[in-house]
């Protein structure tokens, strides 16, 4: 059975060109870049090229830093724990402002910092599923707020947050602004000059790069207390030998993703919309958020009368990989926080199924997925007591 992968917000296939670019760094160019001999120095040009690609990809200036980390979770932890260490622990500021719909990499780190004495404000989203500048304005204060951390795009809904307005508001008030851009890089343009963010996290494997490598953008002149103390790598801001192969891979993946942005906006969006139209033609099916406000690859759908995990189990049986924010599949039966924060009918919170495409998704795959989804919905509705006839 040919399987169809529609879970690209979880991870993506490695672009074969990226795989090829990483190949020399296992057995030939394996030197430690911090060594003085030629084994070490000969990898520098490749690293420089990778950094150039990453800097260009998000429009960072040479005076800014892009620290290479192990994952976006590490990037998020670095910013949040550094702010706690430098500003909150010392009593200079007291609060972190974030949202109720952040990824656990941010929200659970905030919960940890609460145990260390930080005050954290979790902002609700509005009916459109985002936090806008009006909401944020009411909750920040130049004397108290140490950091605002708001995602660029939501992993469940794909909804894009107005990061430019939010970051500008913080800049005007002298407050640091961080964004977790994991779901934005490679799907929508990300420009740290246009949107004046201070810190930005991203992860290689979300845009067809390797897993196990991420990055943290730090605007020029900002203090960061390392999460990982150690050697002088990353200018002493992140210890640990750089995984050169992964850095090279992520660099190329970034360049390819940025090149593909027009393709995301046209082809990927067109396939996404075709899938979405087909879903909406089924009675009792809803999609969260308007198409224009979402990353072009994401659909969060709710099928009335069909529990989310039962749905993805049935889709998996037919070779279609999707994911669910449905509580039954996770440790907690609490409804998906994104759904709850959006004030949606809580019945929907148990019916959510996320379908996420990539530039590798084909039209034929979408057609097959549509047939599979129709079949699963029909079958599971015969089981449900509240089936739509």
């Amino acid at each position, binding site marked *: 059975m040919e399987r169809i992968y529609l879970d690209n917000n979880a991870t993506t296939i490695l672009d074969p060109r990226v795989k090829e670019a990483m190949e020399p760094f296992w057995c030939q160019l394996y030197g430690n870049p911090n060594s003085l001999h030629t084994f070490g120095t000969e990898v520098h040009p490749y690293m420089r090229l990778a950094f150039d690609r990453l800097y260009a990809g998000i429009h960072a200036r040479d005076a800014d830093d892009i620290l290479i980390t192990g994952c976006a979770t590490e990037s998020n932890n670095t910013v949040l724990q550094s702010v706690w260490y430098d500003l909150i622990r010392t009593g200079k500021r007291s609060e972190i402002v974030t949202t109720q719909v952040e990824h656990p990499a941010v929200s659970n780190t905030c919960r940890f910092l609460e145990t260390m004495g930080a005050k954290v404000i979790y902002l609700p989203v509005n009916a459109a599923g985002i936090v806008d500048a009006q909401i944020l304005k009411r909750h920040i204060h130049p004397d108290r707020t140490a950091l605002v951390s708001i995602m660029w795009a939501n992993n469940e809904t794909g909804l894009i947050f107005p990061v430019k307005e939010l970051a500008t508001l913080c800049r005007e008030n002298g407050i640091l602004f961080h964004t977790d851009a994991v779901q934005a890089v490679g799907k929508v343009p990300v420009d740290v000059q246009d949107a004046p963010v201070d810190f930005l996290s991203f992860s290689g494997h979300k845009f067809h790069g390797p897993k196990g490598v991420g990055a943290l953008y730090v605007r020029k002149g900002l203090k960061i207390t390392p999460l990982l103390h150690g050697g002088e790598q990353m200018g002493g801001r992140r210890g640990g030998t750089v995984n050169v192969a992964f850095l090279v891979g992520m660099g190329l993946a970034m360049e390819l993703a940025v090149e593909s942005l027009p393709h995301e906006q046209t082809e990927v969006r067109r396939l996404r919309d075709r899938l979405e139209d087909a879903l909406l033609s089924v009675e009792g099916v809803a999609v969260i958020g308007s198409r224009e406000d979402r990353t072009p690859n994401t659909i969060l759908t709710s099928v009335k*009368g*069909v*529990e989310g*995990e*039962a749905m993805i*189990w049935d889709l*998996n*049986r037919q070779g279609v990989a999707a994911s669910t924010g*449905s*509580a*039954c*599949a996770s*440790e*907690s*039966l*609490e*409804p998906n926080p994104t759904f709850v924060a959006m004030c949606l*009918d*809580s*019945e929907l*919170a*148990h019916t959510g199924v996320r379908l996420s495409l990539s530039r590798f998704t084909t039209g034929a795959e979408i057609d097959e997925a549509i047939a599979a989804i129709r079949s699963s919905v029909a079958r599971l509705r*015969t*089981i*449900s*007591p*509240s*089936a739509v006839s």
Partner: protein
Amino acid sequence: MAKSDLIGGTLWESYSGKVNDRMLHPRHLGEITAADAAKLGARLVVADWGAEVCGDAIRAFWAVQDGKILDAKFKTFGCGTAIASSDMMCEMIIGKTVDEAMKITNIDVERALRDVDDTASIPPQKMHCSVMAYDVIRKAVSEYKGVDMDSLEEEQIVCQCARVSLRTVKDVIRVNDLRTVEDITRYTKAGAFCKSCIRPGGHESRKLYLVDILAETRAEMERAAEKSGQQKSFAALGLLQKHSAVEKVLDEKVRPNLLKDGGNLEVIDMKDADGFTDVYIKYLGACKGCPSASVGTLDYIEGFLKSDLDPKIRVLPI
């Protein structure tokens, strides 16, 4: 945490073959209409349990004739585990009386879904889905009998998944001197499955939580220990008070037995020495010259004083 916890996403791989089969091909899915029941000469019982807003809802249809379940069907809004458990539940109750059906628990349903005897059919965090099947049986019985559902439960249940009662949890804490919820889980399996009963904020909200029961029971135990501690702080007493404590034990527990044999003893002196309290005694009556006076009887006397007052008491006959 252990090696097996370091790789995620084994939820579906933990389902048994029978669970997978019934998720895909449930045998008892559907409805029984009033006409179907009438054809069987049976009474139709329809019971709803759960709600879609909570993520799980099940509707059971029973055709009951003279207390016997002739047919059972279900519909469910829930994950695959809920579908498979509901289906197995129907299969297990068909042909049984209503009272027999009520004795079937979610644990029986889970067992029946196993492929191999010693391997669970569903992963721990899915156990609560099988509880639905048990709850709907009780709901149907209460509908059939026209009684309140709570009246069907004999004991207050803390952990629905493992069916552990409040009494069992309290007993196991007391008897084994348990200090953590993990210990309670190890002894009783309570809290090992969906974990809702451990503390607020889990899958479902509960009336009773293990953390609270543990804290309460420990507090009760401490109060009790404090009470007996007041009687037992023998070592801290002065010699005069030690003497009256010793006399009290001798009067209550030792002398009556010695007197039965025509003997007795008196305390001549008491000294604190080397961290011990030495009690010098003189045997009287038949005890004087009794062969066991320096062996068995002595151990007998010392035993009472040690257990009731302080293990560091030595009895020395003169």
